[in-house]
């Protein structure tokens, strides 16, 4: 079976922890970190990376263009 798997990369320093990506992700991949970045924001990260399908929703709603999305079709058993 072919399946889309995805991954995101968050630019931690420019992330402002707005949570919009968290909300936008259909598969609950993203959460805000407990730690803060240099600006004092709890940045977003892949809390549940396996669930990501690379749909780009998170990146689309991110006001700060912090998210790069990768996607690949993989064959699964």
């Amino acid at each position, binding site marked *: 079976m072919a399946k889309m798997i995805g991954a995101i990369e968050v630019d931690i320093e420019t992330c*402002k922890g707005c949570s919009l990506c968290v909300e936008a992700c259909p598969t609950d991949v993203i959460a805000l970190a407990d730690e*803060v970045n*240099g*600006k*004092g924001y709890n940045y977003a990260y892949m809390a549940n990376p396996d669930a990501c399908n690379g749909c780009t929703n998170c990146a689309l709603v991110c006001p700060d263009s912090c998210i790069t999305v990768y996607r690949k079709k993989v064959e699964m058993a």
Partner: protein
Amino acid sequence: MKEEIIIAGFGGQGVLSMGKILAYSGVMQGQEVTWMPSYGPEMRGGTANVTVVLSDNRISSPILHAFDTAIILNQQSMDKFEPLVKPGGLLLYDPNGITRHPERDDINIYKIEAAEEAAQLKSAKTFNMIVLGAFLKVKPVVEMENVLKGLKKSLPERHHHLIPMNEKAIQRGGEIVKEVTLVKA
């Protein structure tokens, strides 16, 4: 008596209102006071700071270039205001998020783990009151009863139920403030 104070940190840390309470406390004590914020778009996300002067005499300028006390709550503010503390003055800071700690040896330095404490109290809003408590412990420029009066005055009526909580936070700040270095006398 004249005390010239800068309070500086991120927008959203309650910097301006801490200054306001301090100023009102001074008024309650019969002092002349000025309160002068940095203002404008920087407020959003960026830094915010306020200069408070408490004095027994008429205050000429509310904008200062040197301070008796600097209360510092983020790294940018540390970079900007550490050098502006008068020799022998006070620098009080919250180490949370600070990457370069203060280095001067001609001033008195204290730290207050206010963010951590506020997180433990599960009440981010008390953060600035903890810091205020710490400052008043180190430099009791106004009496506590006047601080409470100032608190009352600066809070809108509908928030007066929060006063006890704030009072506790001020107290707590006084308890946990830590001396870092003192000027060699």
